[in-house]
């Protein structure tokens, strides 16, 4: 019963209207997934999209705080604070900041078992660009300007609960994967325990292993093509890898068509995914991928 949306909006903060438009789109995306927005009593005064002004400096103009709304939230609470504004001089460049933890206080702080405040930002653009969002009550992906055509305008954020060896949700924590934007240096991932601080530091490369052969689907040298490989992303809480999540995969860019969803089996069950392409994530996402143009992002789309 997840929610998906493909939206387009202008990527700058030049007017209040433009700022509110993209901010409201992000807010609506997670709200429609089924996450519960905290009340102002729980999380302090949150952003009001009808009155908030565009930033004119490197600052946040406000925030909202969300919590997962699934059966595991009582035993493994997950809160996510989203701040909206700009991290550039003059406030021209749209930025959101994400912080995840297991509690929230009345002033909107995420005080315990929390991640650092992560800034996600791209360059400004005067044209309307496509973003993808997908989620449910306990997972969320936002791929900002994934179809935009300029990689340095883009970022993505993916969060989901940990899973067991069968892909079933667990109450251990969350898997976070992101590209914070910018040119080639933004990849991060972390395993975060729900009841404790980060089990590991942020890893600055994705835990995906792709072949160097630039093909996952074509059996070369005369053997027919039978299938197309996609590559999971593995997180660790120190030591071994955890079972991979379902939110994001990598693929060889030329093997799937961006913007056209597909069905594939993950942990023995059929799921729908959206190839986002490599425009957004042009720098190598896989440790072994030799060409920056080859690996691309596949997001859960259901």
């Amino acid at each position: 019963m997840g929610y998906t949306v493909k939206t387009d909006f202008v990527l700058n903060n030049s007017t209040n209207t433009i700022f509110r438009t993209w901010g409201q789109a992000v807010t609506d995306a997670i709200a429609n997934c089924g996450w519960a927005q905290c009340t102002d009593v729980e999380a302090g005064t949150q952003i009001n999209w009808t009155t908030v002004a565009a930033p004119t400096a490197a600052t946040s103009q406000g925030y909202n705080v969300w919590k997962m709304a699934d059966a595991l939230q009582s035993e493994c609470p997950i809160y996510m604070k989203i701040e909206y504004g700009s991290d550039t001089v003059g406030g021209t460049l749209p930025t959101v900041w994400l912080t995840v933890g297991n509690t929230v206080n009345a002033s909107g702080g995420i005080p315990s078992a929390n991640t650092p405040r992560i800034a996600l930002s791209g360059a400004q653009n005067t044209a309307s660009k496509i973003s993808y969002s997908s989620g449910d009550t306990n997972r969320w992906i936002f791929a900002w300007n994934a179809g935009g055509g300029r990689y340095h305008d883009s970022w993505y954020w993916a969060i989901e609960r940990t899973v067991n060896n069968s892909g079933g949700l667990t109450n251990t924590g969350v898997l976070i994967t992101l590209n914070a934007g910018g040119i080639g240096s933004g990849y991060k991932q972390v395993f975060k325990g729900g009841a404790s601080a980060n089990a590991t530091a942020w890893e600055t490369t994705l835990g995906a292993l792709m072949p160097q052969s630039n093909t996952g689907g074509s059996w070369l040298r005369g053997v027919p093509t039978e299938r197309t490989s996609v590559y999971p992303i593995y997180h660790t809480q120190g030591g071994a890898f955890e079972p991979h999540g379902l939110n994001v995969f990598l693929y060889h860019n030329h093997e799937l068509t961006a913007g056209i969803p597909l069905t594939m089996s993950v942990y023995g069950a059929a799921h729908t995914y959206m190839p986002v392409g490599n425009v957004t994530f042009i720098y190598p996402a896989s440790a072994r991928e030799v060409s920056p143009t080859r690996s691309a992002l596949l997001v859960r789309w259901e």
Partner: protein
Amino acid sequence: MGYTLIANTAPRSNSDAEFRAWGNTVSNMFANSGMVKMTGVGEIDWSTVTLPLTTYTTQGYEIWRFNDALQSTAPVYFRLDYGSGAANVRPGMWFTLGNGMESNGNLMGARSPAAYSSTGGHGVWTSTPNSSNIFLTYFSGDTNRFALAFSIGGSAANIASFFFASAERTVDANGAATGDGVLLTFADQTQQKQVAWHRHIGEYTGVEVSWGVLMPSGSSGVSGSNTAVYPLFHAAGPYLNPGLNLLGYFNADFAANSSTSLTLYGASHTYMPLGNAALRAISTRAANPSCVMIRWE
């Protein structure tokens, strides 16, 4: 019922005796593993062969074949050439794989390309001579697999002296050997390569120039009472099931030269951590110091 040996080797061919010494040591390892050396095919004679006088020169070869139950339906023959590397005194070896053999010793069928330059392919293994030290060479093999870590043990100073090669049959999802092909993995001081070979079509893909090992970007695989090791994947387009010959690990987690038991594909196996004296940084994901352990049974 495999065979393992740690031998002392001097990685140098300054004389006929030195060349024969390291070459014959390697040859005996293969023989003791249970694989079959083909005779009457012009093979090298270790009692008479002379040292190479020029670079990248083979002084002779041996043809071996697997000797397991799959050999009748999925034959694997391979040729070992013994000679020199970038200097005539540097030990060099070549490995070529085929699915059959002609009477003159030429391999038949879907062959892997032999490589006769240090940069041209995966088949050449060369080492730098070391005039004053003898190093440890590790060998582990059976009728259908081997892992050879030549002149790898000892101090960090011998990084340039080693070469490494591994071959094993492809395996199914339960880790049982299959007749599809062979997983090949190589390294020397300048390269880490791997490729999967299919018995009918040859190499599935181009040779990959890094090993398919994914490790966390931390510095240890220890979590509570568990210590993680990391399989090595070969590509055939899609990844194949990982073989059992090699595993990656964090150097700090295991003592080199001290074998350890672990469970792979649901069965207990013994492995030998090689340490980071030479073969290190095997994971491309900033997992240094990462090392390799070889099946040791």
